[in-house]
């Protein structure tokens, strides 16, 4: 049985091709796979579609991938006030964005994870978000049809992994990571520590190993 543990960050991202769709976990400075992002900058993969809550901080999170021009399109809920690298590329027309309400972003990823083909929600009705979407009335409520968001890869940040890829998270660093792990075809987790198989209580596993395909140990980097 092939081990999921990668010896380096560069090995962890070595199969990512130009044009890939990649989910990136993290929220509020916590739970971002910053080491994997740096490895992807080194790899230089282009024409990426990114799916993430926001579009980077001044220097960190997704910003290096915008600076390097590797991201072509992003699906996000809240670009963020200091996402200058994104803002510049976006203003120049080099990057396009689909802005999605945050809960709907989660739900569309979960729909992909759960094999659903679409769902109806009242969120976004009569707003710019509804543009171009099918609208109907169900039980007297106006609602719009939202489609799943699939991805080739998820880059996530967890706290501990066992040798099989069962994951736990630290405090609110959990955020988008478990949902993205479930939604993507291939999930790559950077973790603080790998523990022996059996060392994580089956009742406290947050992301079961079935959702995790590669694991690499790297000390978390944090950007303000």
């Amino acid at each position, binding site marked *: 049985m092939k081990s999921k543990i990668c010896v380096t960050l560069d090995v962890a991202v070595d199969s990512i091709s130009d044009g890939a769709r990649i989910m990136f976990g993290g*929220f509020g*400075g916590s739970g971002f796979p910053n080491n994997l992002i740096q490895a992807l900058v080194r790899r230089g993969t282009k024409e990426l579609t990114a799916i993430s809550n926001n579009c980077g901080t001044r220097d960190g999170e997704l910003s290096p991938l915008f600076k390097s021009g590797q991201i072509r399109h992003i699906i996000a809920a809240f670009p963020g006030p200091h996402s200058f690298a994104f803002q510049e590329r976006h203003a120049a027309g080099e990057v396009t964005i689909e802005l999605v309400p945050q809960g709907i972003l989660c739900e569309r990823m979960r729909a992909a994870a759960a094999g659903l083909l679409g769902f109806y929600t009242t969120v976004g009705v009569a707003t710019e978000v509804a543009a171009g979407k099918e609208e109907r009335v169900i039980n007297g409520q106006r609602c719009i049809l939202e489609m799943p968001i699939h991805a080739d890869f998820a880059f996530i940040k967890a706290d501990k992994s066992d040798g099989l890829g069962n994951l736990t998270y630290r405090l609110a660093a*959990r955020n988008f990571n478990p949902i993205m792990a479930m939604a993507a075809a291939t999930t790559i987790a950077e973790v603080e520590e790998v523990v022996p198989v059996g060392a994580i209580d089956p009742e406290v596993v947050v992301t079961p190993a079935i959702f995790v395909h590669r694991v690499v140990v790297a000390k978390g980097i944090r950007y303000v």
Partner: protein
Amino acid sequence: MSEKQRLSRDQIAARAARELPDGAFVNLGWGIPNLIADHLPAGITVYFHSENGILGMGRRAKPGEEDFDLVDAMKVPVTLIPGASFFHQADAHLMTRGGHLDVAVLGAFQVSERGDLANWKVPGAKGAGAIGGAMDIAAGTKRVIVCMEHTTRDGQPKIVRQCTYPLTCLACVDTIVTDLAVLDVTERGLLLRDLAPGWSAAEVQQRTGAPLSF
């Protein structure tokens, strides 16, 4: 003639805090709402919810006790109260959209007399805009309270017949707490429920873009 004294941002937050029932599960948005946690009346416990997957946030962390894996939706390091829990972002929004939160307190650019909310984008502003969790929270929460100044800096009413700013959600606002008054959105329009000290109903009506009942 100079304007009369209006409530400060902290005073608006303190007035809004009195709307929160004991034991409630509450989400606080950007701006004035984020000040509310510091103004809870004594003896009241509120379980604050954050979109990144926290229930039961306590006060902000003091210098030196910050843990940057324990931050609220504004990226501010916080603490927990006993009985707190963590979950992922999809469950956090299952709570917002699914109607599990008792109250959400949000900031706003405009609110219409029917409770339409505009709080995510200024018309004509550069950039992509920023929705965040507001649309899910506004659409789903049992009771939505808006906290804002009653008028814009140049004196234009922010409470209007019809929003001209890009909408966040239709008919979602239940109560508006401003520096001048507390208004409820009812089936028969806006009801003036409370006044800031020194202000009359007529004066508030004058600064409101929709008719008020008393």
